[in-house]
């Protein structure tokens, strides 16, 4: 029996690892999730049949609890709107942490003189980390739900941060060296941990939230591992560590993608625009998109409309855009081109380029056709165009280009803009499109950027 349980646990651990491995590609990810789930079920089975010295009681309680948990969790997951998923994940994560905290409390309540230091210490860890993750996650949930918009930093935040950590750790040692778990140190530590989660997440907001959630996620994993340590349960231990390790790495990767350090996110404790996101002096911000996201966005859309401009000509990216077109065509994404009459620097500039790249003429839409098509377009990819997509021409009578017909990129569902930086177009004026909520910027020379997209596409296909 015992060895069967061990094997079940072992399968669970490797199912978790293999499940994560399959997250590598959209094609296998769903299956990976199922494998991971099977691992979890086997793990649960193991814990139900594992021989215990005092075991085999209270199955009714277990079944009931599991039923209640499922009854709560499943509808939540199924009814949530797509856009609200991140906060739900945060919430679930918090509950996992809470679960570890509860286990930690119970185990500390149960200690006696024989309990070794290491057991007690590990219980303290489960409690402490779980509690931080719990309140932190719930706060993250509230923030993402928009129920809490403030970000506030107390003076001396960093010093306080350190102090709190020291006190909590000290109390933990105190408890672990004591022989009686129950007592004020336990409750104080619990309270402090719960507070620390809030304290730690409160100042963070905006674009940094995903990083924090990932971090909290890895904390929950560690608390689960600690809880596993209490029972010497390998599935919990290794599974938890896998989550903790991968969560930490994921956090670092996300920071890297934002061009910031983790400390910058946590300690600076306030939202500072990364070097990537640009702002135009006022409070408007250009939002960036990452390579894989741009690639996947296009790959999983029904149609893409490319709006080429002078920048395409400057970077001589016409052949590369055709290659991207071919790749997308291969997965049934329809790609067309919207040619504005004055795009580029001479009449027919875009025509010359796209003909050179052998783009079939049927794929070129002129202004009117393009504007009609834009309404049903999933993704519009603007490559080095500026004036010809500047909405000021429609709605700002003071603009020098007011009255010029433009391509209404904002009619599409998603807008991606490729340009090198904050350069203006021929008319030398600001373009509000770039600061629009719907618009995502992809900075870099158009040719290089398209090459990156192609590399991503090739990897995914």
């Amino acid at each position, binding site marked *: 029996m015992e060895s069967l349980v061990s094997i079940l646990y072992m399968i669970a651990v490797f199912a978790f690892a293999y499940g994560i491995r399959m997250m590598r590609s959209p094609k296998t990810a769903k299956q990976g999730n199922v494998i991971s789930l099977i691992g979890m079920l086997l793990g649960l089975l193991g814990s139900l049949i594992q021989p215990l010295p005092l075991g085999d009681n209270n199955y009714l309680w277990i079944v009931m609890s599991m039923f209640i948990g499922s009854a709560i969790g499943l509808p939540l997951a199924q009814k949530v709107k797509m856009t609200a998923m991140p906060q739900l994940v945060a919430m679930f994560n918090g509950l996992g942490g809470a679960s570890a905290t509860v286990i930690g409390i119970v185990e500390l309540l149960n200690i006696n003189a024989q309990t070794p230091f290491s057991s007690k210490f590990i219980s303290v860890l489960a409690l402490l980390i779980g509690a931080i993750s719990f309140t932190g996650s719930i706060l993250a949930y509230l923030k993402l739900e928009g129920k809490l918009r403030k970000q506030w930093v107390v003076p001396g935040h960093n010093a306080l941060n350190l102090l709190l950590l020291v006190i909590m750790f000290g109390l933990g040692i105190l408890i672990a060296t004591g022989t009686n778990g129950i007592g004020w140190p336990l409750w104080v530590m619990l309270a402090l941990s719960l507070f620390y989660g809030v304290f730690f997440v409160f100042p963070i907001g905006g674009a940094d939230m995903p990083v924090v959630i990932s971090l909290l996620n890895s904390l929950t994993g560690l608390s689960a591992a600690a809880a596993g340590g209490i029972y010497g349960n390998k599935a919990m231990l290794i599974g938890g560590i896998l989550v903790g390790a991968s969560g930490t790495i994921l956090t670092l990767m996300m920071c890297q993608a934002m061009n910031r350090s983790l400390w910058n996110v946590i300690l600076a404790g306030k939202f500072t625009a990364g070097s990537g996101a640009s702002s135009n002096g006022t409070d408007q911000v250009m939002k960036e998109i990452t390579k894989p996201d741009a690639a996947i966005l296009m790959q999983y859309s029904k149609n893409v409309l490319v709006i080429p401009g002078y920048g395409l000509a*400057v970077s001589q990216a016409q052949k590369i855009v055709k290659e991207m077109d071919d790749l997308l065509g291969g997965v049934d994404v329809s790609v067309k081109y919207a040619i504005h009459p004055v795009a580029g620097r001479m*009449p*027919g500039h875009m025509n010359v380029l796209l003909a050179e790249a052998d783009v079939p003429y049927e794929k070129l839409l002129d202004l009117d056709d393009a504007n009609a098509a834009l309404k049903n377009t999933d993704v519009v990819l603007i490559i080095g165009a500026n004036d010809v997509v500047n909405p000021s021409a429609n709605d700002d009578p003071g603009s020098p280009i007011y009255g010029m017909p433009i391509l209404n990129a904002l009619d599409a569902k998603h807008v991606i803009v490729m340009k090198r930086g904050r350069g203006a177009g021929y008319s030398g004026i600001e373009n509000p499109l770039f600061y629009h909520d719907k618009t995502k910027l992809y900075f870099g020379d158009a040719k290089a950027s398209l090459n990156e997209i192609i590399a991503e596409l090739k990897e995914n296909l």
Partner: protein
Amino acid sequence: MKLGVLRTTDREILPMSKKVIGKLAGLGFEVLIERPEEVVQWELTLFGGTDYYVDKATILEQSDVLLSIGYQDVQTKAKYWLGEFQPFNFPEVEEKLKSLDLVAMSMDMIPRISRAQSMDVLSSMASIAGYKAVLEAANQLPQYFPMMITAAGSIRPAKVLVVGAGVAGLQAVATAKRLGAIIEAFDTRTAVKEEVESLGGKFVEVEGARDESSSGGYAVEQTEEYKQKQQEVLAKRAGDADVIITTAQLRGRPAPKIISQAIIESMKPGSVIVDLAASTGGNTVFTENNATVVKHGVTIIGNSNLSDTMPLTASELYANNVFNYLELIIKEQDIVLNMEDEIIKSATIS
């Protein structure tokens, strides 16, 4: 309201098309077109028939708005005359127009801003001219444009030098590139470098050019020192070239004489020069307007209206430009000139 289209003696094209006639009808305008002496094929395609032809006298008599490309000495009852009068080059025309009892508007005076590009006849005609200049040169040149490595021998690609990379020059760069030639282009405006490169051409740099962004896209006269340097550099590039296409113009002045006798003498016999600035004097010392001459073995084609060799498309585009302008000034079946509008203000010359 009636809109009468007059022919211009030295131009083949007409500023009107079937499509535009239809659109004008929608705005309440009837279009009359001067009857030609002999019907040519492409005009039938342009108008879809001879229905709109009336005598010139009738047009002058009945029209509310006159439309032509060039000016001619006529008496008319029309109240508006829209043309391409080039007041900078022909101040005397401007004077005569002022003496008439009508409002004269000149398409070439429309400012070259993004919004007005759809009315810019200079651009649409220059674009055709650039394209045709290359075809003309390729047809005259006694060798291939593209490189060819064949069993009968290897042929090096032709070298094309484009002087003045404005609208026409850029189109020439693009077309020559398509045909497989090696392209170099030269201009005094520095912004042009990137533009030439964006079409696959190489830009020839001469240091010290004056470039005034305030001049609205037009080039300015250069210093003597610069002209000197330019001569040196160009002499070298031109000696290598099989084809030179010149388009350099200065608004309201004679075109700069960029290609000197020395340069032409250094060129290979059989080379071809197409000079699109012929009407304002030409960019070479030998250019004759509307004529082809051979000097020192080099064929020099002087033609400022190359767009007329592609009359159907040229007329259609011209007509569209005109319509886009008319649309701006037609309000409820009548013509209303809003002088606050920069475009209308600049176009109105009397």
